[in-house]
């Protein structure tokens, strides 16, 4: 009987994770090249119930909700023209590569600038790499042609913060680079808000289920075996 308590609780835990991801998506509604996260929910394995007296199967019961692995939705978002000569966006799939102290990392945020030594760098000062993996020199007048930047395909890119992804590149990405534009955040604000409300109500349903089961348990523990009528 108390199984129901735990089944309802797994649903609440799953909704909490979903809510945290939606919050992060909304917090990054202005982050260039940001990609929203989704975590699929599926049911735990079913359990076969049997009659304790004669061992006859009664039927199956679901054990609640289990979270799958988080998936980042890499769908390219729209471009937003900024007119800045060192802003770049990738139209279509692919990543820019930057050289960090931890090795090469990938990003879709092309908000770059020039370094003191005249090379193209990202916000953290990491060098942006061309298709051959070499740094790019900012030309006369502070310009860099979009075609000078490398675009890489990274099949299993994993987010690590600061707009960077770790992973290993497998050749050239199919996207093309546009100068003077940034990719918008991939967050759909309206959808995220609706999901958020839905998730909160599902969470509330979990709470109601727990309370209902709790009341049943309370009745069992206080009223069963009592001689006087309850009240």
């Amino acid at each position, binding site marked *: 009987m108390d199984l129901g308590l735990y089944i309802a609780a797994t649903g609440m835990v799953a909704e909490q994770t979903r809510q*945290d991801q939606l919050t992060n998506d909304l*917090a*990054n509604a*202005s982050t260039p090249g940001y990609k929203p996260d989704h975590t699929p929910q599926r049911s735990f394995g079913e359990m076969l119930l049997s009659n304790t007296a004669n061992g006859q199967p009664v039927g199956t019961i679901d054990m609640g909700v289990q979270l799958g692995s988080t998936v980042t939705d890499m769908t390219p978002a729209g471009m937003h023209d900024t007119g800045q000569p060192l802003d770049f966006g990738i139209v279509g799939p692919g990543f820019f590569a930057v050289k960090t102290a931890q090795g090469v990392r990938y990003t879709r945020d092309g*908000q770059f600038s020039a370094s003191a030594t005249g090379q193209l760098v990202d*916000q953290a000062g990491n060098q942006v790499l061309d298709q051959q993996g070499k740094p790019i020199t900012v030309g006369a007048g502070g310009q860099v042609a979009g075609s000078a930047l490398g675009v890489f395909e990274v099949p299993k890119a994993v987010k690590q913060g600061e707009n960077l992804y770790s992973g290993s590149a497998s050749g050239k990405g199919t996207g093309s680079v546009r100068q003077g534009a940034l990719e918008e955040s991939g967050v759909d604000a309206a959808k995220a808000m609706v999901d958020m409300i839905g998730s909160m109500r599902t969470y509330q349903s979990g709470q109601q289920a727990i309370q209902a089961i709790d009341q049943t348990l309370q009745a069992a523990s206080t009223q069963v075996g009592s001689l006087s009528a309850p009240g």
Partner: protein
Amino acid sequence: MLEGLYAAAAGMSAQQEQLDAISNDLANVSTTGYKAQRVGFEDLLYNQVNQAGTSTTTGAGALAGIIGRDGAQGSLQQTGRPLDIAIEGEGYFQVKLPSGQTSLTRNGALSLDGQGHLVTSDGSLLDPPITLPAKVSAAEVSIASDGTVSAGVTKLGQIQLVTVAAPDKLLADGHGGFTTTAASGAAKAAGTVQIQQGVLEGSNVDMGTEMATMMSTQRNYQLASSAIKTQDQMLAIANQLRSS
């Protein structure tokens, strides 16, 4: 469980940063030689929870900061004053602040001080200094496009332009000027010198863009604040589990 609240709050403070930059740009829409700020956003660290066969990641919000300035040329405004000069293209005037520090500026509203030196609007001397002889008035000064300052046929000096490798990383000194930093590189002579006399360079702030960014910033601030509200409601629901 409270992480979500903080992630949403981080999102709000990032939008606040953007709004501050917009306010500053709008306040300087008429400042001679002002360059609009560029704001960069990034996501924060991800928390990864590994359970049997699956891994769930949740992010910690967003961060914003000013990453540099828009290098675009401001519109040139004709003033007719002989000591108003504007730079076309790259470069900065180098001036010596009263404190002795060197500063770079694009504000070419020059005037004469008591000793006949050419000074910027806040009283800083051009570096190298240019002095007008006592008998020469400001109206007789002509400044050629290469920076040569002369009165009639007498050459009085040369206005030099400097530039740095990374103008984005110059530090604003609060007097309309900039100081060099390690990230910007040291000041060096500009490749091309193109100066116009009788003209000032206006602010390069574009009102339309600023207003549009302000609206989207406000909406995104609101979204992050709704996220806080929802997170709070969920915590309230969790707290009410034992209320019956």
